[in-house]
């Protein structure tokens, strides 16, 4: 191994080690992300089946002109002690788009999601004891005329 390569490699290792030491990254997380995500998806699905309809706000467009970028807002500031928010698109190949855990943040999320086709979008808001859902049907038009 020549000197240059050695220096490069040792620097890379050092920076990763520093990140691990700071508790920012758990190494096995990065490797086992897909199976971990499936597990979370299953948990969210079971939560959704047992949940009741909540009174929070889910903002989604009725008609999305472009399925590649659909803005979604979940505003659950009226619910106390929200632990997590999940956004679930029923007809996508990976139905769970994102699972947010909010230890120190308010129950408010805005993001942009992808949708393969017209589907129902469900937001699941969970507290320590209960889960609430809200659903909207979002129509995806591919023609681009907004029709």
């Amino acid at each position: 191994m020549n000197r240059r390569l050695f220096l490069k490699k040792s620097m890379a290792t050092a920076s990763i080690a520093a990140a691990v030491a700071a508790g920012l990254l758990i190494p096995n997380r990065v490797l086992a992300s897909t199976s971990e995500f499936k597990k979370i998806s299953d948990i969210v699905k079971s939560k959704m089946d047992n949940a009741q309809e909540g009174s929070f706000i889910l903002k989604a467009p009725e008609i999305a002109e472009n399925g590649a970028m659909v803005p979604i807002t979940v505003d659950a500031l009226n619910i106390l002690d929200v632990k997590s928010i999940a956004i679930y698109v029923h007809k996508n190949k990976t139905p769970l788009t994102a699972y947010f855990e909010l230890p120190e943040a308010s129950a408010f999320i805005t993001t942009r999601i992808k949708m393969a086709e017209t589907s129902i979008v469900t937001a699941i808001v969970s507290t320590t004891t209960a889960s609430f859902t809200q659903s909207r049907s979002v129509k995806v038009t591919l023609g681009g005329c907004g029709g």
Partner: protein
Amino acid sequence: MAKIKLKAKSRDGVITVRVLMKHPMESGNRKNKNGSIIPQNHITHLNVNKNKVLAAKANIGGSISENPFFQFKIPGVKGDEIYFESVDNLGKILSITKISK
């Protein structure tokens, strides 16, 4: 070129954090013109810290749009330090630190 932009603005004790990233977010389901599958390349985890304490984190699948945008609301005041980092399935880390306005 910055791959990540973050704005943090406080108002009435709440910091609104807006993050815009540059990332292809390839889900691994799409095919290219030759019919071969485009390999997965999407963000899997992200963390938002306020003053070095975890405020929000997320597990993300391939269904978030290309060049993802996120908005969080975190209780806090002007001058708080907001740290954001994301990891994709290839292990690439993007991070940014900003002082709230």
